[in-house]
């Protein structure tokens, strides 16, 4: 009997200390989400300016640039998967990976080879565990991505894209990340990064793009603009993913904490019942003993 009480006590104390960890992680995630969302907002002026400039060039020139020309046949595709470094974020990484697997299958069904690029230790672990190969991996700082990392990834992917198929290059580039829609909804999303489909914004009368002069030449301007555009798209995806990761972690930790509270309540009840049962038994033993003596 005493043994059972001890077991419940151990369970209660370990659940209590786990709950402390969950609560702390929830608080940390909550305080960081605000910052991550602010960073998403802070990167918008840059992204808008670049998009505007690219569509300005695109709208007045017949673009003939390798980055925007659709290859005749797409034989190999690169997929950049953006997940988190750490777990404890519910199904965050799993749903991105599921989306990536879906894309992989789709691309293979179209007869394309797939080359995988990874950002985040969770995706790396997933691929390592299954013994699957990937081309390159970046880890660290998934919950607060640096622009330098985005530049590095952008440069690596552009280099792949510029390489011929025969030498191992790719013909198109996809990104799988989690889009931050709101605090409660985050959506695993696939976007095709290259070849670019330059969307010419619906031009309204009031903001008809002016006829720009280019310095030095339209082509060089485009040469400098497009890689930046790619980098900014990748960076935006990384920032969105970071905000989503924190939101997912906050939600997961909240429900873990609630669950721990439930468990503590349940074990406390069981412990009390066990203690009461022990007391009752001792009492009835004493009474029985006294009865036996007096009889």
């Amino acid at each position, binding site marked *: 009997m005493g043994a059972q009480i001890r077991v419940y006590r151990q369970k209660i104390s370990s659940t209590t200390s786990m709950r402390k960890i969950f609560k702390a992680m929830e608080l940390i995630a909550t305080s960081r989400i605000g910052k991550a969302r602010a*960073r998403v907002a*802070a*990167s918008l*002026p*840059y992204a808008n*300016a*670049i998009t*505007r*400039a690219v569509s*300005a*060039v695109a709208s007045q020139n017949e673009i003939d640039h390798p980055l925007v020309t659709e290859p005749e046949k797409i034989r190999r595709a690169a997929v950049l998967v953006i997940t988190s470094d750490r777990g404890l974020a519910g199904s965050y990484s799993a749903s991105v990976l599921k989306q990536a697997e879906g894309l992989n299958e789709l691309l293979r069904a179209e007869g394309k080879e797939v080359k995988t690029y990874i950002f985040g230790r969770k995706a790396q672990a997933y691929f390592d565990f299954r013994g699957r190969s990937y081309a390159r991996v970046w880890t660290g700082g998934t919950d607060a991505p640096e*622009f330098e990392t*985005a*530049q590095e990834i952008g440069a690596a992917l552009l280099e792949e894209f510029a390489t011929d198929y025969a030498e191992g290059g790719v013909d198109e580039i996809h990104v799988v990340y989690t889009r931050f829609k709101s605090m409660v909804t985050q959506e695993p999303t696939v976007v095709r990064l290259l070849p670019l489909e330059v969307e010419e914004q619906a031009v309204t009368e009031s903001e008809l*793009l*002016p*006829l*720009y*002069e*280019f*310095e*030095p030449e339209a082509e*060089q*301007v485009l040469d*400098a*603009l497009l890689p*930046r555009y790619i*980098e*900014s798209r990748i*960076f935006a995806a990384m920032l969105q993913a970071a905000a989503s990761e924190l939101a997912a972690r906050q939600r997961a930790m909240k429900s873990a904490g609630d669950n721990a509270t439930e468990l503590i309540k349940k074990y406390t009840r069981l412990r009390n019942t066990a203690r009461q049962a022990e007391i009752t038994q001792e009492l009835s033993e004493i009474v029985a003993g006294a009865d036996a003596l007096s009889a």
Partner: protein
Amino acid sequence: MAELEVEIVAADHFVWSGAAKMVKARTSDGEIGILPGHSPLLAILAEGELAIEPVSGDRIAVTVDGGFFSVDNNRVVIVADNAQLGESATAGIR
């Protein structure tokens, strides 16, 4: 006289915006000065310093490491990968 409406953005943050009389920048071909009424322009920035002459206050120096800028309708948007404001420029931030 008309003024220029200047906006400087870096990849991950907003740097500066305000009204200016003149913007001096370095493109890959050489220095270029922009006064109000300049024709629309889209140019590549070279690494280095660009100077902004605000309507009021001292000249502002910004160090950029590449990027581009566009001018249209007296609106100058400077887009840099990394931009560092020189000292004495904080007063212009709004």
